[in-house]
C-alpha cells in the first residue's frame, strides 16, 4: 500500500490525478459543497492522517519546522475551497429558484459602521496573529547554520516555502523564463483580472453557475499550478532535487535516470537521422515555429471558435486577446511538465549561445 502511494505520488501520475480530481470537484460542486460531504471527508481524513503519520519518514517530513506552514496551508486551503463551493452551491440553488443569493437577503443587507465593528475585529485579529507568531517563533526555532560559504550549497537547497512553487517551475524552464517572465506575468495577470473580467455577475455574492469560466481558470492556476507545486516542492523533493515518495527515505544516492534532450536534437538526430545544422536559427527552427505558433497562431484560431466568438462579443477583441495570451502562458507550464515527463524534453527552443531557452 505504501509502495503504491509512493508510486502514485510521483508528479507524472499525481499531477493528472490531481487535475482530474480538480475538474471532478468543479463539475460536482453541488455534491462537494454540502456539509454532509465535508463531514464525511473530515472524518475519513483523520484515520488516514494517523496512518500516514505512523510512518517514520512521513512523520519526519511533516514535522520539520520549515514544513509546518505547508501542513497548515493544506488544511486551510482545503477548508476555504470547500467553504467557497458550499456558498456557491447554496446561492446557485437559490438563484435557480428565482430567489436572491444569501448575501442579498434583508438580514444580510443590514449595514453597520466601520468603527467600531470592523476596526475592533481587525485589532483583535492583529493581536491574535502576533501572539500566534510569537508562540510559533518560541516553539520552532530558526536553525542556526554555519557561516555562508559561496562555494557550498545545502542539499537539497530549498527556497522559502512560498517560493517552492516557483522553484518547481524552474525545474522545467530556463531561469529567465520561470524566474522573471512567468512571475511577472502572474503579477500583471492578477492585476489585470478586474479589467479583463467585465462580467457583473457574482459581484458581492458567491456563485459558480454564473461565472464558470473565470472560476475554473483561476482555481486551476491557483490550486493545480501553485499550491500543488508548493506541496510537491516541500514534501516530495529530497536531496539533489530528486523526487521521493511520501514514505520514502531520503537516500542521498537514489539514482534516477533523467537524460533530457532538446527538441532540436529530437528533430534532427532522431527524426531525420542527420547531424545538427551549424546555423543556430535553422537548428532551432522547429521549436521557434512551434512556440510562435502557440503564442501568436493559436489565439486567432481560438477567436474563430464558438467559445472565442462569444467572449469577443461580450468583452471585445483586446480583452479577448489579453485573456487568451495569459491563459496560454499559464498553460505552457503543464504542457512543459508533461513533455518533460513523457519525452524527457528539455527545451523547445535551446539557444544557450544567446542565453535564450524556452
Amino acid at each position, binding site marked *: 500500500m505504501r509502495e503504491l502511494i509512493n508510486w502514485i505520488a510521483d508528479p507524472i501520475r499525481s499531477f493528472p490525478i490531481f487535475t482530474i480530481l480538480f475538474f471532478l470537484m468543479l463539475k460536482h460542486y453541488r455534491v462537494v459543497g454540502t456539509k454532509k460531504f465535508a463531514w464525511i471527508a473530515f472524518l475519513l481524513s483523520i484515520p488516514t492522517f494517523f496512518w500516514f503519520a505512523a510512518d517514520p519518514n512521513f512523520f519526519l517530513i511533516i514535522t520539520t519546522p520549515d514544513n509546518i506552514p505547508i501542513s497548515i496551508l493544506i488544511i486551510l486551503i482545503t477548508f476555504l475551497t470547500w467553504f467557497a463551493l458550499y456558498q456557491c452551491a447554496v446561492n446557485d440553488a437559490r438563484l435557480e429558484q428565482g430567489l436572491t443569493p444569501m448575501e442579498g437577503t434583508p438580514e444580510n443587507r443590514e449595514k453597520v459602521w466601520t468603527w467600531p465593528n470592523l476596526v475592533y475585529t481587525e485589532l483583535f485579529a492583529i493581536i491574535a496573529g502576533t501572539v500566534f507568531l510569537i508562540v510559533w517563533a518560541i516553539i520552532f526555532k530558526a536553525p542556526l547554520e554555519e557561516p555562508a560559504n*559561496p562555494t557550498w550549497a545545502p542539499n537539497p537547497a530549498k527556497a522559502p516555502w512560498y517560493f517552492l512553487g516557483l522553484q518547481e517551475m524552474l*525545474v522545467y524552464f530556463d531561469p529567465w523564463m520561470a524566474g522573471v517572465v512567468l512571475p511577472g506575468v502572474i503579477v500583471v495577470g492578477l492585476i489585470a483580472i478586474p479589467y479583463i473580467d467585465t462580467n457583473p455577475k457574482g459581484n458581492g455574492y458567491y456563485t459558480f453557475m454564473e461565472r464558470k469560466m473565470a472560476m475554473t481558470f483561476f482555481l486551476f492556476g491557483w490550486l493545480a499550478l501553485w499550491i500543488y507545486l508548493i506541496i510537491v516542492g516541500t514534501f516530495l523533493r529530497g536531496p539533489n532535487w530528486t523526487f521521493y515518495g511520501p514514505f520514502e527515505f531520503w537516500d542521498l*544516492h537514489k539514482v534516477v535516470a533523467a*537524460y533530457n534532450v532538446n527538441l532540436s536534437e529530437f528533430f534532427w538526430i532522431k527524426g531525420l537521422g542527420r547531424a545538427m545544422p551549424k546555423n543556430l536559427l535553422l537548428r532551432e527552427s522547429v521549436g521557434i515555429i512551434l512556440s510562435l505558433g502557440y503564442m501568436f497562431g493559436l489565439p486567432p484560431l481560438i477567436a474563430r471558435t464558438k467559445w472565442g466568438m462569444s467572449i469577443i462579443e461580450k468583452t471585445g477583441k483586446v480583452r479577448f486577446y489579453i485573456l487568451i495570451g495569459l491563459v496560454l502562458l499559464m498553460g505552457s507550464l503543464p504542457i512543459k511538465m508533461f513533455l518533460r515527463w513523457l519525452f524527457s524534453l528539455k527545451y523547445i527552443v535551446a539557444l544557450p549561445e544567446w542565453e535564450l531557452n524556452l
Partner: protein
Amino acid sequence: MSEDVRLQLNRREFFSFLSVAWIAFTAAVGGLLSLAFRFSYPNVNFEPEMEFLAGRTDEYPPGVDERWKNQFGVWMVKMEGRLFALSNICTHLGCIPTWLPAEIKFKCPCHGSGYYMNGVNFEGPAPRPLERYKITLTAEGKIKVDKTKVFRQEKGEWDNPDSYLTV
C-alpha cells in the same frame, strides 16, 4: 503694540531662518544618504582570489579533484589525457552542484541539473555545460588557474589550448 510686532518675523529674518533650516535639512539628508551608500558596501570582502597556483600536474589523480572547490570554486578534472579547471557554478541558476563519485556525475541540489565528469549537462534544466577556466603552466612548471577567462563548450571554446593542459 510693539510686542505684537515682535511676534512676527520681518522678511530678512524669515529668509535667514529658512536658509539655516535648508542647510541643516540638506546636511542631514546628505549624511543619511552617504551612510546608506557606505552601508551598501561590505565591511569584509570574502571574494576568493581570481588567480591561483594549483601545484603540479602529476599531483592530480585521474578523475575529479575537489581540493580547490571550497577555496576557489574550481574542480580539477583529469581525464582523456587532459587536465582542466571546471567551474562549480551551475549554468541553470548559479547553485553549487555536488560531485557524486559513485554516480560519476555532478548534481545540482537546487533544481536537479546533472553534469558528466567532463562538465557536459545531460539531465535536469541546465541549458549548457559547466564553464572551464583558463589553465596554464608557469615557468617553474606550476599550474596557474585564471578564473577571469572562461571557456564555454557551446561556443566551441573547449578546444582552445588555454582551456586545458595535456598530461
